């Protein structure tokens, strides 16, 4: 039981900060957070998927399944505009 709790807690982030500048990582986080997940790690854990579809040209996330099993599709180009960068949360584990 203790090990399970330990396991759960290891998934919980230790800290959170806001993104200051747009980068490729922030772009990806923005996409995961739009779909209702913290980041790639949580998405993989909740959905139990190995492969996340990404755009071949830019490497950004292409398709995500939300918690209600509907799908969100993303553009091949940048989606996170400058005015939305500060809304992106960067979690540390």
């Amino acid at each position, binding site marked *: 039981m203790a090990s399970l709790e330990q396991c759960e807690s290891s998934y919980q982030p230790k800290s959170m900060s806001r993104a200051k500048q747009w980068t490729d990582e922030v772009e990806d986080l923005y996409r995961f957070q*739009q779909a209702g997940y913290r980041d790639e790690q949580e998405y993989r854990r909740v959905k139990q998927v190995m492969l996340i579809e990404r755009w071949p040209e830019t490497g950004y996330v*292409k*398709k995500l399944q*939300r918690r*209600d*099993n*509907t*799908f*969100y*599709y993303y*553009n*091949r180009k940048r989606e996170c505009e400058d005015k939305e960068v500060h809304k992106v949360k960067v979690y540390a584990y």
Partner: protein
Amino acid sequence: MRTLEASKSKQELKTEGFTVKSTMKNSVVVGPPPAGAFRERPAKPTVFRKFYERGDFPIALEHDTKGNKIAWKVEIEKLDYHHYLPLFFDGLCETTHPYEFFARQGVHDMLEHGGAKILPVLPQLIVPIKNALNTRNRQVICTTLKVLQHLVVSADMIGDALVPYYRQILPILNIFKNMNINSGDGIDYSQQKRENIGDLIQETLEVFERYGGENAFINIKYMVPTYESCMLN
């Protein structure tokens, strides 16, 4: 009393040209009535609206705070493009929320992820595109032009395949091509939002020419005589 009579006799009689009335001394011939080339022609209720209200689309209709994405219930890759893509294009005529949003975003998503599945459906898209442009509603034309630009670059060969359909699409573009405000050195804010119809049409025609192969220019020129090549010079 005299002044009243004088003014009465001076009163001009407005009349149409080539009538007996127009030969009278005090009659003035008015110009012909406007032909209404720019007048809006409201679209009939669309099939898209019917399908949407019936819940026939594989999209989640509830809205969250984001509001700029469609939650698809089915993977787009598995959709029957022959069925859905023309339906979404049909919705381009819509001007009211939520129909307008779902049509625009649905078309966008399907084009972005359609790849090779778009080309075979192209002939079925021409009539909805033509209908949308024919509404002559500024907002609808704007959206449709952006969709056309996206359509041309969405997959290989689409630009070429679109050339035979220029006759259906380009007449409206020819009418509105000069809809540009000459604001001198003032700022036209619609430019920033990419809502200036004249500029959008120019852009669209240039995209058509770039992606339409060698016959594109001559065919555009035939339908839009004032168009000048962006590649030959």
